[in-house]
């Protein structure tokens, strides 16, 4: 068994420097690597390119890195929850590449799977298609999208073992397994780290081969963005 465990967040972030490209898992604030983001926001690293479906909110998630202007470029699909993001984007301080969510997911998956590019119908005829090769398959136009990889991928899982195998919970899975595949160095933080052998191999979502470092997360706030409930009648 290859042991992937790192003891501290500093060890987990070893090698992180300015101008790198990071992938950050999560959808909204669900399943984001809270500990890695918090630690990155305290480091003096700037000029980052971040690949993440969303950009957090003003004071949590990737919003923390945006506040300190650590991010030069965001590659995302939806950023509506963050006013500071919108301000930096409209003023031109922040470079933004908005891409369809399914294409973002598949581009990460492809990056990890050794597929350099693929054709998809999503975005054909829109701004997203500008400059991209168009080809017809089954009578329908498709655009060429290229794979994404990153220097570091920061992901968050529910449970993990010392071999780096991961199990996610609920909809906190989202982009995490795909980004884990696409990171040159994938840092997984988990709510519960167990010895290898304790997780049922049948139930593992992300095989440890995709994870270079695994860390027991110190604490999780797990903020809810839109608390929506129904009344008991």
């Amino acid at each position, binding site marked *: 068994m290859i042991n992937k465990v790192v003891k501290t967040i500093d060890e987990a972030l070893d090698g992180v420097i300015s101008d790198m490209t990071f992938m950050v898992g999560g*959808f*909204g*604030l*669900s*399943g984001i690597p809270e500990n890695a983001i918090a630690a990155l926001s305290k480091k003096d690293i700037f000029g980052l390119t971040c690949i993440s*479906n969303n950009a957090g909110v003003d004071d949590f998630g990737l919003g923390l890195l945006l506040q300190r202007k650590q991010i030069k470029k965001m590659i*995302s*699909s*939806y*950023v*509506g*929850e963050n006013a500071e993001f*919108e301000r930096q*984007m*409209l003023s031109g301080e922040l470079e*933004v590449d*908005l*891409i*369809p*969510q*399914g*294409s*973002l*997911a*598949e581009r*990460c*998956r492809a990056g990890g799977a050794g597929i350099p590019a693929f054709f*998809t*119908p*999503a*975005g*054909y*005829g*829109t*701004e*997203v298609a500008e400059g991209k090769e168009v080809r017809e398959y089954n009578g329908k136009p498709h655009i060429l999208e290229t794979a994404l990889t990153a220097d570091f991928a920061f992901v968050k899982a*529910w449970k993990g073992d010392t071999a780096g195998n991961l199990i*996610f*919970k*609920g*909809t*906190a*899975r*989202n*982009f*995490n*397994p*795909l980004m884990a595949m696409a990171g040159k160095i994938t840092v997984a933080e988990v709510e519960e780290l167990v010895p290898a052998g304790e997780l049922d191999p049948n139930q593992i*979502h992300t095989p440890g081969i995709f994870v270079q470092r695994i860390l027991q997360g110190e604490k999780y706030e*797990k*903020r*809810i*963005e*839109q*608390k*929506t*409930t*129904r*009344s*008991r009648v």
Partner: protein
Amino acid sequence: MLNKNQIAQRIAQELEHNTYVNLGIGIPTLVANYIPQGIDIEFQSENGVLGMGPFPFEGEEDPDLINAGKQTITTLDGAVLFDSATSFAMIRGQHVQLTVLGAMEVSENGDIANWKIPGKMVKGMGGAMDLVASADNIIVAMMHTNRAGDSKILKQSTLPITGVNCVKKVVTNLAVLEVTNKGFKLLERAPGVSVEEIKNATAADLIIEGEIPEMQL
């Protein structure tokens, strides 16, 4: 004239038995409240859940269980959770049969715009471009006019589009419109709204054949 809940109620009549449906943010989300009796539907949310249930009771919210609008949800028996690539395989692969979403503009060739107002609002397309590029059936739920009172039903989109030639039907507070290869066809009018009023509120030409019935809610 319909309110938002009534728009959702009218769209719910379009649901077919034993189908998988993706509901967008806003009015579309309300459609789940009006599923007709005897119709079995599984709702997909593109952040990675199929078999989505109602909102949780107060105190039972789970931060690890949300829909694509980031609202807390529950799951029903038979539900399944998956990653974003699998989710969009369901969408792109046309396993999800119906998509209901909101729009800022719909044009007469079925183009939809709902993700960007240049220089003003830049939220991103989220999963909308993947959804509209692939679903067999796409219904738009929206108000007929914008806040300024201008028609959102246009000959040609003025905003950056989300997808081309994709919308099949539009349900607004005033009317039900079908997108045909000759343009918008008026199918139904909202209770108490005349054909004349609909024409006046619509920038695109309307195909009007015979008596236009009132919606039945």
